[in-house]
């Protein structure tokens, strides 16, 4: 079946509509009053939009007996944001120099270490989680930011990604800088990083997204409700208030919207980074 440009556009439009329909519905339902969705067919868009669900989610609300309580989504937002920013900063600090070094610096054992890292890229994180929990417990890092962040620092894919992109930089450029007496650190920060900007943005976005959406490890490593990240808090609320659909959708919006907006804002760099240099495959 041969489709002309207009035909393809229509099919793509339909596909796109179907793809984002759940997300649009999510936003719509979050603006409906409680109990609206429990009908067939379900409403598609609120007739009387209300922010009540967001208010109940984010601020203190009053229970039937007069007790004021809170779902603690506010602290969860703060935790998720701080942790994601720290994870990105730390992640970049660890992987950028290493990626550059593996690509462009000659040092003893480089090939051997490269092979070791490649071998380790294989290990799925879950194998390490149980003993990691016991290890961190013994030094008192369970239920702390550090406990959540530290295991994520061993990101082999980040190193490989940066290395892949750095290989494309011509050696002559770097040798010229070395002849001028520049230290490796200056070369990295003043020459290599600016050239790698889309790749760095991509890696930063990826790291931020991975940390923001991380579920299994924070679920295990945090027991104090005040330190919950958004996914863990949302999962906890959903187990108890699962029938309050509208409330859950508001929670889902709060959890997905920030990263979606971030991604939309940085999309040009991001797409260049993924499509242009260093596609992981």
């Amino acid at each position, binding site marked *: 079946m041969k489709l002309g440009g207009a035909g393809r556009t229509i099919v793509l439009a339909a596909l796109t509509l179907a793809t984002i329909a759940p997300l649009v519905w999510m936003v719509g339902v979050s603006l409906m009053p409680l109990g609206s969705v429990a009908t067939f067919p379900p409403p598609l868009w609120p007739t009387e939009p209300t922010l009540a669900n967001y208010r109940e989610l984010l601020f203190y609300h009053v229970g039937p*007996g007069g*007790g*004021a309580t809170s779902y603690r989504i506010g602290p969860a937002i703060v935790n998720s944001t701080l942790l994601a920013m720290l994870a990105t900063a730390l992640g970049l600090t660890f992987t950028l120099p290493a990626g550059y070094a593996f690509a462009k610096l000659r040092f003893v054992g480089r090939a051997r270490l490269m092979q070791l890292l490649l071998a380790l890229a294989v290990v799925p994180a879950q194998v390490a989680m149980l003993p990691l*929990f016991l290890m961190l417990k013994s030094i008192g890092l369970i*239920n702390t930011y550090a406990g959540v962040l530290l295991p994520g620092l061993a990101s082999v894919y980040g190193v490989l990604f940066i290395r892949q992109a750095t290989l494309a930089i011509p050696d002559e450029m770097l040798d010229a800088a070395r002849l001028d007496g520049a230290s490796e650190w200056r070369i990295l920060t003043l020459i290599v990083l600016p050239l790698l900007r889309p790749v760095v943005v991509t890696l930063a976005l990826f790291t931020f997204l991975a940390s923001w959406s991380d579920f299994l490890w924070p679920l295990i490593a945090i*027991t104090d409700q005040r330190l919950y990240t958004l996914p863990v808090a949302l999962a906890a609320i959903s187990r*108890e208030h699962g029938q309050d659909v509208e409330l859950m959708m508001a929670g889902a919006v709060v959890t997905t919207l920030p990263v979606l907006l971030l991604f939309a804002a940085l999309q040009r760099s991001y797409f260049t980074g993924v499509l242009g240099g260093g596609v992981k495959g």
Partner: protein
Amino acid sequence: MPVDGRMITRRDVFALTGGAVAASCAPHGGDRVTWWALGMTGENAPVLLPPFTAATGIAVDLQAVPWTGAHEKLLTGFAGASLPDVMMINTAWLPELALLGAVAPPPPALLADMLAGARAAVTIGGRALAVPWTANGWVQFYRRDLIAEVGYAAPPLDWTAWTRMAQAIVRRHPDRFATLHLLDWPEPLFAFASQTGEPLLRDNLTRGNFRTAGFRAALAFYKQIFDLRLSPMVTGAEAGDTYIGLRRGWFAILPSDSVFLGDVRRPEHAITAGSWSAAATPGPFGAGPQMARGACLVVNRAARDPAAAWRLVAYLAGADLQRRMYGITADLPTRSRAWALLPADPVTALFAGQIAASVAPPAVPEWERIMGEVQIVAEQLVRGTFTVDAAAAEMDTRVDRILAKRRSLLDRGHRL
């Protein structure tokens, strides 16, 4: 939203917020006690705390933990050494926490005037290890009009007559159901089984005892409910809002516990007063005893300030506070004096009778897991994977596997 016919004004919210914030701010050099409370009780408990803090200067850090996942959270907290000072737990979990050595025995004064069954439920190896806080039962809540439609004033209490009534309801409204038995809740099946008089574990609580005639009869009755389409085959996640379901008449009977009484006070869940009531769970020959259910307060053996923790427990478990709790969340008290203060109504009286006649569940740490595993097999029985006899045998096999460690430790001479 209106409560007691009066709008909650912004001023109320600020006042309560301010109170809650004040309650959670540590006074200068004062003590802090951390407390985990479960479910609706936890969500509503903040209003109970300001008088305590004002009187003693001890600030309380309350965390409301949802019931689902609470057991995991407790164990993870123990493993990660991050348990709070005071915990509200399901009394059935006490043997497990006792085995872990996580709880400290209460001062005997706190156990005075407790209902006999409640006190027995927290006594392990001859020692009381918790203070009973709320008592519970398992009953059928029903829509009086839907039952009356088929000629009954109340649901019958023996299985045969009950089935006849349920079939009449379904015949009258073929697109609806008579009851809602959720496939991932063990309580309904165990409510039937506990009335048969047979113990659920044998050999010093190291093996399953599910192949007895009594339990198999309970299994057959449970299966029949689904075979005759008296209940939909759904889990909690799919059932949606059960209160809306009861209000709309999708089913006439909702088996539940005292949580129901608290939940129907929420405006979204309100069912017209007088249109519903409660009856005991039917048994093979009339209603029989139920397994004791309830929650208790425990103090962490590793609490930083045990004295402060016990003061909080003493405050919470007082008769007046238990009476106040009933007013807020409909949690039933464990102190006899508090019961005397409750308003008299038939539903409360029904619970009182059940609590008085209840029997303690087997005191093994694996009990939570055993109940879950038995229900998983029961779900497969309902879906046709097993026959009744095969299901009973499968339950024994799985429970024996769960209890294997306990068996081997006992065989080696450990005292458990």
